[in-house]
């Protein structure tokens, strides 16, 4: 496979030479988003920041280092690994680069390149809303995220989030349940099982919208990766909704980035007593739009709510033969169980049913393979 071959496949329509040069940067561990920002800022005094200048700046920095940029053979290996994972590369200014992110280029944090796995190698063009929040939500928080995901997907809005356990996955699952589009920005490269064991959801998201990463394939999770990817989550969405988060939460960071990128920020108001609602309440105090009903978010993205009048999202209608055979109790409970374990006691409170009913329903769902038992309670399988 010649360079032109793999470059053409990896980034159709782009100059193979440019593809190789950018991939060479992307494969170097030291070329991370902060360095990229440095390279962009070095050009800010010019009348316009040219992609060519940024690349040249980074290459010059690489030549000056003791461990320079990778050799051509190594770049080729990375390219082939990406293709093996079914991934493509999008370079800013070239075809396939998401429009919303391009709006954030250069100084608002948009990346020079992006790896993505998506149908047709393109992220959905429709309006997009980021739904973000804590990894440890309450039952109510997870439900809100699922309901938001479902509502947005039903109205053709893409749900963007970060694939983390908790609010992120709840939002993805909501969108998937409604058969809509959802995009996940990963904190690892492709080919890494993270969050471990959640491959099913990742594959479903890849097929229903897309997976996005700016890290080379096989790159493991590191704390800074998740901080860096936040600017992609906010940048890929028109609106960012923070469902739940504690003080110093990552969701708070995403919301601040969204505001800096000139996007709308919404927050789900929770109880002032609930530490899990600290971040959204702080955002509302600082001027974010409170989400007083789920459909508020549709107003902001300019989609008409087909179900206006019904205050809340209706129950799930997964519409397959499996759920049809479930008892009424089990079907009802299925709408309460999310990506986050909830103890039967908590589910009983949420559903206002006796705990014996809940236990029987959990067992029914578990034996049907629809939920998975964890030591902390059932989650969606």
């Amino acid at each position, binding site marked *: 496979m010649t360079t032109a071959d793999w470059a053409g496949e990896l980034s159709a329509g782009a100059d193979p030479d440019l593809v190789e040069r950018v991939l060479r940067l992307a494969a170097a561990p030291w070329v991370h988003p902060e360095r990229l920002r440095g390279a962009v800022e070095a050009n800010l005094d010019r009348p316009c920041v040219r992609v060519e200048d940024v690349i040249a700046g980074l290459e010059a920095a690489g030549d000056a280092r003791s461990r320079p940029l990778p050799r051509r053979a190594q770049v080729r290996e990375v390219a082939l690994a990406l293709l093996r994972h079914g991934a493509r590369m999008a370079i800013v200014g070239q075809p396939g680069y998401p429009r919303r992110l391009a709006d954030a280029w250069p100084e608002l944090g948009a990346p020079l390149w992006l790896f993505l796995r998506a149908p047709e190698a393109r992220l959905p063009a429709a309006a997009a809303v980021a739904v973000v929040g804590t990894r440890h939500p309450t039952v109510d928080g997870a439900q809100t995220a699922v309901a938001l995901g479902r509502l947005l997907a039903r109205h053709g809005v893409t749900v963007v989030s970060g694939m983390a356990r908790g609010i992120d996955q709840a939002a993805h699952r909501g969108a998937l349940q409604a058969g809509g589009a959802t995009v996940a920005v990963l904190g690892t490269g492709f080919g890494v099982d993270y969050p471990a064991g959640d491959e099913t959801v990742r594959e479903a998201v890849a097929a229903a919208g897309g997976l996005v990463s700016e890290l080379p394939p096989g790159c493991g999770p590191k704390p800074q990766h998740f901080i860096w990817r936040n600017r992609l989550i906010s940048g890929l969405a028109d609106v960012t909704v923070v469902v739940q988060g504690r003080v110093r939460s990552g969701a708070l960071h995403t919301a601040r980035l969204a505001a800096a990128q000139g996007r709308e920020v919404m927050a789900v108001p929770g109880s002032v007593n609930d530490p899990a609602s600290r971040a959204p309440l702080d955002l509302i105090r600082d001027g974010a739009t409170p989400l007083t009903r789920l459909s508020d978010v549709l107003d902001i993205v300019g989609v008409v709510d087909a179900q206006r009048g019904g205050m809340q999202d209706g129950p799930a209608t997964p519409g397959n033969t499996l759920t049809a055979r479930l008892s009424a109790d089990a079907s009802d409970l299925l709408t309460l169980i999310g990506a986050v374990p909830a*103890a039967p*006691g908590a589910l009983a409170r949420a559903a206002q049913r006796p705990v014996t009913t809940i*236990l029987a329903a959990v067992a029914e769902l578990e*034996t049907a393979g*629809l939920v998975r038992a964890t030591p*902390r309670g059932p989650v969606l399988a």
Partner: protein
Amino acid sequence: MVGRVRTMAVVGLQAVAVTVEAHVAGGLPGFSVIGSWGPAAGQAADRVRTALATVGVAMPGRKVLISLAPADLPKAGARFDLAMAAAILLELGVVEQAALDGVALLGELALDGEVRPVPGVLPSAAALSATGVHRLAVADANAAEAALAGGPEVVPVRHLAELLAVLRKEQAPRPAPAGDNDVAAATVPAAGPDLADVRGQAEARRALEVAAAGGHHLLLLGPPGCGKSMLARRLPGILPPLTDDQALEVAGVRSVAGLLGDPVRLERRPPLCSPHHTMSAAALFGGGTGVARPGQLSLAHHGVLFLDELFEWPRGVIEALRQPLEDGVICVARSRATVTYPARVQLVCAANPCPCGGGDRCSCSDDAVWAYRSRLSGPLADRLDLAPAVEPLSAGDLLSAQAGESSAAVAARVASARAVARDRWGQAVTCNAVAPARLVRQSVRPAALRTLANAVEAGALTGRGYDRALRVARTCADLEGSQMVGTDHVLEAYAHRLGLRQQPTAAASAVGPAVAVAQW
């Protein structure tokens, strides 16, 4: 001529009749005790000789020989002092043989002649009726305990002089204090902790009720401070009170361990033992030099054994629990005897759900959680029945004025469920947890059996787990007053077992993705 007096030795819980023979003759002055006894025999000799001197019986320049028969029975302690003194009095002609016919004596002597209490009086007194003894002389402090047995007439003696006076008919024996053996009076359990103190915890409360109604073993899973111990300590309060026989068995073990309380009363409330995880295996199962003393496991007989921090216990100790849990007895071998103590306990364990404790901000990975959970050995997990999640209390729960349901209300439901079970099984089966699986299956609806069989086929349940789940389902049905076990009961029983998983089930990973994709 040889003076013969009867007394009782206790080996484990078993009381054995012992004959004390005394022979006083000329020869080299001395006082020897023979009959399978260690160096402590010499101490008994000194106590008896000194005590006898206080009632004016001195033995200057004579050879005293005491023999305890049967000689091959291991003996220990000071329980034979009183009988030895009586045998010498008989041998010396101070009292007549007729005065000691049908009389047994148990007690330790102080140097001033006072009679002191000894352990194991209750099993001794209970065994005496079969040996033709109709009077039992014991220390004042043992009189109430001896009376509990309801066997021989109890003669309390305060001092060797009093025994002498009674035996010489110079004084009428004092009446024994009435043992608090009145069933009606004791049925009301002594005030213990009440379930009304537990707020929320719907699942754990339900599991506790099912466990109490069926005698099932329980594992409470929850973060530190969420109230696992609080719940466990409330289990005896909702269990049915002990029957006469059970209460006597429990008191017998406590008597042998020297733990029978003062004042002595027959405790109707099932015992609760909560040994700490640093405890040695000997302390848990029974042990000690020569003849083993009962451990915490036997002290919890007919009651609750609460093992907090289950995963902190040494694996060997937990594994060793399996056999007594099945058999209801524990057999402990020591150098001088192998004894069997009863150990029919209801096991309640508590553990954190994950390595960090499992609080609100738990960030343990699933792998770490499962690794932690694998410390629960499969065979033990199979012997547990219910594993509810005990939730950390929210501020709302703490502030809510609504108290939980009281122990009395729950105990009433437990009692009626147990009555239903007793009517069905008869006397041989004490609770659903020990009901033969074959009999349990007879009262389960076919659809319910099929539901559970599917879970076994999918690998989500072992064969043993299947039978145990059926028994729990039987209890759920009993609590509802339902004759037959339905699908709902079986599903609830299955859900109660979900917390016992040690790994993500093979079934879920095999079936899960296909179903999940179908759902999307």
